[in-house]
């Protein structure tokens, strides 16, 4: 179990690690690591392998918005049904059920402010069980998934320290 968690957190930080490297780093047989990873993929615990991209440094620079959605839960379905209707749109990057002042946190990435606004007004707000929405645009990303975007990676230690 400990091994599984360690492998997950290693891959979460660097999906490029090979099973052979993980085997060495965790002092486990390679076959065991391969099996654990295959199982995690089969169980959809590992859902994919991606790169952490700082889009702001590219010319593409899409906009990201957090949308707070308040909804009326449906009998027998709770929030799952309405959440699904929202998160199936390809613009939706993440969707969470929240405690507190609103119900769903929907994170949307699109080409422009206008596209996001249109999406919210056309696809989310009109849904029957949606009571209200509130859209917040992200102005700058400082840190994502544990990685600081602005931090400089240079090593300013002395050349040799004995």
């Amino acid at each position, binding site marked *: 179990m400990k091994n599984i968690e360690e492998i997950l957190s290693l891959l979460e930080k660097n999906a490029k690690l090979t099973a052979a490297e993980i085997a*060495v*780093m*965790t002092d486990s047989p390679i076959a065991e690591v391969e099996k654990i990873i295959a199982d995690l993929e089969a169980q959809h615990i590992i859902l994919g392998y991606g790169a952490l991209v700082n889009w702001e440094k590219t010319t593409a620079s899409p906009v990201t918005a957090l949308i707070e959605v308040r909804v009326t839960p449906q009998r027998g379905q709770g929030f799952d049904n309405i959440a699904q209707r929202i998160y199936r749109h390809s613009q939706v990057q993440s969707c969470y059920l929240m405690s507190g002042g609103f119900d769903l946190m929907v994170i949307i990435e699109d080409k422009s402010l206008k596209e996001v606004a249109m999406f919210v007004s056309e696809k989310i707000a009109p849904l029957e069980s949606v009571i209200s929405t509130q859209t917040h645009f992200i102005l700058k990303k400082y840190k994502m998934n544990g990685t600081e975007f602005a931090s400089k990676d240079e090593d300013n*230690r*002395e*050349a*040799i*320290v*004995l």
Partner: protein
Amino acid sequence: MNLESFLSERAKAIPPSAIRRFFDMANELKGQVISLSIGEPDFVTPWGIREAGIFSLEQGNTHYSPNQGFIELREAITVYLKKRFKLSYQPKSEVIVTVGGSEAIDIAVRAVLNPGDEVIIPEPCFVAYKSCVLMSGGVPVTIATRAEDNFVLLPEQLKAAITPKTKLIMLGYPNNPTGAVMSREQLQAVVDVIKDLPILVMSDELYGELTYEPADHCSIAELDGMIDRTILIGGFSKAFAMTGWRIGYVCGPDTLLAAMNKIHQYIIMSSPTTAQEAAIEALRHSHDHVEPMRQEYNRRRRFVVHACNEMGLACFEPLGAFYAFPNISITGLSSNEFCERFLQEEKVAIVPGTAFGECGEGFVRISYASSMDNIREAMVRLKRFVERNRPK
């Protein structure tokens, strides 16, 4: 005026570094090379600790502290040593907060040595021990520990080195540069040799928080009767990634500590106030601060040791600190040649074993206090270099 003639015999007695040329080369190439030659964490001090330092400055705490250090910090140190190693020290009389373990080593030696006193130093070891002994007029008696013994000090080696002039043994485990750790049983065997002799032990435990399963650090002061004749050197530099703060400590019997405190008081006055306040925070959450770094070191350690052994550089398993110490003699090169050429040809800096004592010949120190990406690339280059230089 010939200024050479003004130099003291003591200053002249300190030998120049055995790897001076390599040092210069590495400095020249700084920034263009991957450096696995650095004996300090690549991590920045954890934010919670830095923040405590910042807060201290914000409050205007910019004055001297008591000579021995803030009592809150001395208490925190004794609580930590009690919890971690079951060692009991009196915060008022048996702890001095110093400017790094470095100052602690110096004042310990100065407080106990008379000219001509012999000090036993197992090598390879941290470079300051021998020089500090020489500056105090002592006579270093080195013992060559061996790779086949996992670089621990053996009782028979110790027995053979002891003379009526022996006053002190300087132990540095977990060890820089080998990464060796001494178990409780191995330490007990050493204690058995000196138990009835008037000999003190200085135990430099700067890397005490950095050991890897199945090893766990044991302080020699924990062993029966040893707390009364051990000078324990501890620090924050390695475990908490606080090298630049310049803070450490020394614990020991009050008679010895009182003498050390006189020296400390006149040469240093007190250690940095900001660093002391940060150190209090470090100890308050010591496990939480250290554990993520220790785990990361452990993964890198396994990676480096595995890579060395795979490419034919025999490397015993280091269970402490953040160094691997592989044997490079299959290349037929001396440690110094190996490191100079590796630096020039592959642009990776590692340190010749001879920097840590003559018996380090045939070995190199690889520090894995560097990012996994650097380590991975350095191992690719090391393999290429070794293959090129292996006699056919």
